[in-house]
């Protein structure tokens, strides 16, 4: 019966969220009520609300999972988010609040007196919004699969539908209160269980120290472990890279169909094929002939109750060992399943797909080195995260609820405190997961570590209660972020596209109806997109949304706030070029990962496609400057007034009297 405990927690958090939404909506009847209420919100609660909206599934589940998978390099994600807020504080928060623009399309139109520019900005709200909803949807699917055993698509369908209706029915009007509550729910859910788990499984430092003491070792499973594997439809999550540290046996109670066998380390030109001794299928009871993994024929399946043994081997070239730093290079076989199957890993086996302790613990591990340019990858990731934080459409809206620019800065400071405390805890989950539940590596399920780890406790009731708390936290995470994004996107569609472009004469009631239709449409599209991205890491997908935002909105806000010479043509050209090229690079990278696009690109190009911020941001900034210089006569005539409105303190009276109360 204990497995129903998490469901109760999830139902409870959903009910509280919906109820708070309805309650708060009743409290603020009209829109101006809402804004006045927003202004009376204290800095602390406003900061809680911003943090609540910001902490998405990527922060709650994704970073822990990605850190478990890749180690040190993943610490850059939360650091990038926190630094992003710092840059928001230094360059954007105060000016933007003073300007009175509460969405980026507003800023775009107000700063350049150009309704056309509003349209471009709206397009990017939708683009970034959809990219950011994909990981939220994946988190919904993974969580429901982990706690209820539902299929991935069912979790997305149910959760997506509930949230979409909640938003469409107007349950998010009293957003500040709900989001502030969600922050504290998430903070509790990430922190409280960790103390119990550390008490049982060993502390943060103890577990890290184990990795440092045995650099050449890697995690092993403690008991015989049954694992579910995915098929080729889920590539690249159907891949199993065996350990280079020792032989691995894997048996298949129902047999297996294996698409492809290859060495883990991609062979360089001239190197010999994988040798016969790299492993073989184990004979079943009927003593079927044994196949060598080194000469694998895709048509030869593994019969039921048989298995395979994979052995590390030395890479050779013309039968001579290939050396690196004077040592022979070793690798192991990697298999890719054609169809889903179940496998048993015997106790004591090294876990496939798990990096060695040294690679995991030290910088430039599997995440950043995968294409061979670790420093470049690291820098590009940092730029995307720092600049992208300033370009999230649903975050900037919240600065408007500050009474003035000064409060906007104070709020940002508190957001950094609240987020920083949260992010100290997330890596602990990944570190404990590596020691306690290494089996998650084998079938690429590290994203669920926050949900699964508590169930490893020996007391089933305690384990399920803690899993219930983290499940509720995960729910709070994707509910708050997905709701916020849906509101932003539906608002853009209803207000900017329907209300300003299609039917400018439409009444308020018609626009409200348009908002509801748009919310349902955006919700359905998000669910469909979410269904397609099951195999991508949550935190990595969020990185992509950030990369697009970093190359489009960030340059617009930065130069728009600080450079008088920016013209609408310069801003539009930079935003379109930077944003579109980053998007194309990322989509190309996704298609390559999925093997839909078969293209031989160099590792350098591959790195730059996967992490486009390092060229996208400078490109957008550069294009803005050059085109603005060429179109200098289009600088708005009252640019000094606009600059004063952005930067002069409120007491000077430049920014007071154009927002109607």
């Amino acid at each position: 019966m204990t497995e129903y405990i998490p469901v109760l927690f999830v139902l409870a958090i959903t009910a509280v969220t919906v109820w708070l939404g309805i309650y708060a909506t009743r409290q603020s009847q009209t829109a101006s009520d809402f804004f006045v209420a927003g202004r009376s919100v204290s800095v602390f609660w406003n900061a809680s609300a911003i943090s609540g909206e910001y902490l998405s599934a990527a922060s709650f589940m994704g970073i822990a999972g990605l850190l478990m998978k890749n180690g040190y390099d993943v610490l850059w994600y939360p650091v990038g988010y926190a630094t992003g807020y710092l840059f928001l504080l230094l360059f954007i928060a105060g000016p933007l609040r003073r300007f009175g623009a509460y969405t980026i399309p507003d800023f775009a139109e107000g700063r350049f007196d150009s309704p056309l520019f509003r349209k471009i900005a709206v397009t990017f709200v939708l683009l970034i919004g959809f990219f950011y909803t994909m990981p939220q949807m994946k988190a919904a699917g993974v969580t429901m699969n982990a706690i209820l055993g539902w299929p991935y698509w069912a979790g997305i369908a149910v959760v997506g539908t509930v949230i979409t209706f909640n938003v469409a029915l107007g349950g998010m009007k009293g957003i500040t209160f709900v989001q502030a509550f969600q922050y504290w729910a998430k903070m509790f859910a990430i922190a409280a269980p960790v103390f119990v788990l550390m008490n049982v499984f060993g502390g943060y430092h103890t577990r890290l120290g184990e990795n440092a003491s045995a650099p050449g070792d890697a995690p092993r499973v403690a008991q015989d472990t049954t694992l579910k594997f995915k098929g080729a439809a889920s590539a690249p999550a159907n891949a199993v890279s065996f350990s280079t540290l020792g032989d691995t046996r894997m048996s298949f109670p129902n047999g297996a169909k294996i698409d492809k066998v290859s060495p883990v380390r991609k062979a360089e030109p001239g190197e010999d094929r994988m040798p016969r001794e790299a492993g073989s299928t184990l004979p079943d009871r009927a003593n079927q002939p044994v196949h060598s993994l080194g000469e694998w024929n895709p048509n030869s399946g593994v019969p039921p109750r048989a298995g395979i043994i994979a052995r590390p081997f030395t890479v050779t070239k013309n039968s001579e060992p290939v050396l690196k730093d004077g040592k022979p290079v070793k690798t192991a076989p990697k298999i890719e399943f054609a169809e889903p199957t179940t496998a048993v890993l015997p106790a004591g086996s090294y876990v496939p797909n798990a990096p060695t302790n040294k690679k995991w613990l030290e910088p430039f591990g599997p995440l950043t080195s995968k294409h061979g340019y670790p420093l470049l990858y690291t820098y590009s990731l940092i730029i995307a995260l720092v600049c992208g934080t300033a370009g999230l459409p649903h975050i900037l809206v919240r600065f408007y609820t500050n009474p003035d620019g000064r409060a906007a800065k104070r709020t940002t400071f508190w957001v950094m405190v609240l987020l920083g405390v949260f992010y100290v805890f997330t890596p602990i989950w990944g570190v404990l997961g590596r020691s306690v539940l290494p089996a998650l590596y084998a079938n690429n399920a590290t994203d669920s570590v926050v949900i699964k780890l508590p169930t490893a406790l020996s007391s089933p009731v305690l384990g399920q209660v803690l899993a219930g708390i983290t499940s509720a936290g995960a729910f709070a995470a994707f509910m708050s972020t997905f709701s916020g994004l849906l509101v932003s996107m539906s608002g853009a569609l209803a207000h900017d596209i329907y209300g300003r472009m299609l039917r400018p004469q439409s009444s308020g009631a018609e626009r409200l109806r348009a908002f509801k239709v748009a919310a349902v449409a955006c919700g359905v599209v998000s669910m469909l997109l979410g269904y397609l991205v099951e195999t991508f890491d949550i935190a990595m997908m969020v990185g992509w949304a950030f990369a697009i935002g970093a190359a489009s909105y960030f340059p617009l806000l930065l130069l728009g706030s600080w450079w008088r010479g920016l013209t609408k043509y310069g801003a539009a050209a930079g935003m379109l070029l930077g944003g579109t090229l980053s998007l194309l690079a990322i989509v190309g990278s996704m298609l390559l990962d999925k093997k839909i696009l078969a293209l031989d690109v160099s590792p350098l190009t591959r790195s730059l496609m996967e992490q486009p911020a390092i060229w996208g941001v400078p490109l957008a900034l550069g294009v803005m400057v050059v085109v603005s210089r060429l179109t200098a006569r289009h600088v708005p005539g009252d640019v000094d007034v606009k600059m004063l409105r952005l930067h002069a303190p409120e007491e000077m009276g430049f920014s007071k009297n154009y927002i109607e109360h």
Partner: protein
Amino acid sequence: MNDGPDAARHARLAHAVMRRQAALSIRVAAIFVVLVFGLPLVNLYLPELANARAGAFTWTWLFLGVLFYPITWLLSGYFIRASDRIEAECADWRAVLGEEAGEPLEPGGVGDVKPGFVASDEEATRR
């Protein structure tokens, strides 16, 4: 309304206010750029130092995973205080422009630039 002496003053005032704020922002940002872009270089070129043990942690993990956040708090706290000070100074705009007391600057000339995005009820119902 951009004609007359006020327009020229607006321009000079905007320059003056922005220059001070920008200098502060850039100073604080520079510290961060050095920290965030410097650490990967330390990791790459001085791995013995980065991976030396600090108790059970390695130094680089301890810095990036734990200590980094309090540093952001300290620096942003400093920034807010310094930024408030600049604003307090700039409120006396004549001192900023180095002018003698005279005709008042007309803020109303700014306020009547009514942007097209004033929050109205129907627009705001969308959130």
